[in-house]
């Protein structure tokens, strides 16, 4: 059950990040990289058309996985079987009276708006409006995630930090597939002006990536303060060590990005098709790095945060506490 829940959330978050990142790429990276006067059928149009198709599928996957997630969560949260929960008032209570349900309902409306945008036209799907809607779509889960549940100013700050983290992840890792698409299209096309577009897009992506990664790291540190709690916990706990591994991977990805984009991007812009191929491959490598980072995040997600590990130890003697439906490692007392 835990594995199914994890897989469902996996598909959901992966596809949600892709929807947002794809719009970011189309609007902020690809479109400005066009040159005025470029003819129809020009590679950027092809790239954006393909991207729109990918994003439509991603949005569909995101919605379907959200429904599965809801179906799995309702029995877990309420303790009632799904059939009873749907027949009675419980489903409504979940949707109305829990943060999880409210966030899901709001995001369903955003998904509908995004879908209309995707379906409406080949031109308007990547707009400021859709960027806003997709940003809200990606950021709202912070209200029902680990950062939620705090109180007052501190609680609001935790949620805000987590929202920045989600948006930054979307703008960087979520936009990488767009870059891969642009570079591979340019490489196959091979024309000088296409490679010029690809070079400019890569440069813009680098700038955007630098901002996103800075925000990602800063907000990640902010999140960690609440979840790790102390420097010693970084070494003492499993959670802490996983976090250190994650950070090391991110550093490696950044090194890869820096080296390749300062070396390869200018060559692509000057019409070097082979550089475009190398750059495409490296962007894919970066995506793989991102996947590995998120894999660690996945394990982090089912590991009791270091800050709370002490609570489990403290209360196992005097108070028998169990966590239903989680791994056996968490049961005690």
């Amino acid at each position, binding site marked *: 059950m835990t594995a199914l*829940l*994890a*897989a469902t*959330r*996996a*598909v*959901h*978050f*992966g*596809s949600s*990040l*892709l929807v947002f990142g794809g719009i970011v790429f189309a609007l902020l990276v690809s479109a400005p990289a066009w040159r005025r006067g470029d003819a129809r059928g020009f590679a950027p149009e092809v790239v954006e058309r393909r991207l729109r198709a990918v994003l439509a599928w991603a949005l569909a996957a995101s919605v379907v996985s959200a429904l599965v997630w809801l179906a799995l*969560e309702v029995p*877990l*949260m*309420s*303790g009632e079987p799904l059939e009873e929960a749907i027949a009675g008032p419980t489903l409504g209570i*979940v949707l109305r*009276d*829990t*943060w*999880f349900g409210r966030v899901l309902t709001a995001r369903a409306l955003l998904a509908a708006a995004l879908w209309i945008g995707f379906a409406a036209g080949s031109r308007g799907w990547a707009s400021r409006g859709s960027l806003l809607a997709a940003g809200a779509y990606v950021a709202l889960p912070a209200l*029902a*995630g*680990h950062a*939620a*549940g*705090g*109180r007052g100013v501190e*609680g609001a700050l935790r949620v805000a930090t987590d929202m920045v983290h989600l948006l930054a992840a979307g703008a960087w890792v979520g936009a990488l*597939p767009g870059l*891969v698409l642009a570079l*591979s299209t340019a490489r196959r096309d091979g024309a000088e002006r296409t490679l010029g577009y690809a070079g400019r897009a890569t440069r813009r992506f680098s700038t955007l990536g630098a901002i996103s990664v800075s925000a990602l790291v800063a907000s990640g540190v902010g999140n960690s303060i609440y979840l790790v709690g102390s420097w010693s916990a970084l070494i003492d706990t499993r959670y802490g060590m996983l976090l250190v591994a994650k950070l090391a991977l991110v550093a490696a990805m950044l090194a890869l990005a820096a080296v390749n984009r300062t070396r390869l991007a200018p060559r692509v812009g000057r019409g070097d098709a082979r550089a475009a191929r190398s750059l495409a491959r490296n962007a*894919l490598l970066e*995506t*793989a790095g991102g*996947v590995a980072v*998120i*894999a*660690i*995040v*996945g394990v*982090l*997600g*089912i590991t*009791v*945060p270091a*800050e*709370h590990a002490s*609570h*489990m130890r403290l*209360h196992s003697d*005097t*108070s*028998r*506490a*169990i*966590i*239903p439906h989680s791994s056996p490692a968490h049961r005690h*007392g």
Partner: protein
Amino acid sequence: MRRALAAAWVALGLAWSAHASAHAFLDHASPRVGSTVHGSPADVRLWFTEELEPAFSTLSVQDAAGKRIDKGDARVIEDTIQVSLPTLAPGRYTVKWRALSVDTHVTEGDFTFEVAP
């Protein structure tokens, strides 16, 4: 290329599978866990590490025979849950709680306290 990307994205999701999940653990209680109180307490109150969802968090108190004796008016206020008690006879009582945190995770547990004359 396209298929590799798709696989990467599913895997990426698999990883994002649950950005850290903090459960609501019992922080402290009144009467204190395992304690002996002199005189009958007016209520049982539990403090948690996270904010709770009122809709699905529960609290009840049983006597030594397993019979429920609280007033059934359990209410959640942010990160606490409390229930009122009638006048209790001396003896051991068991508090049973189920907490749903705002981030959808359920914890449950129980502890005892003694009422001394």
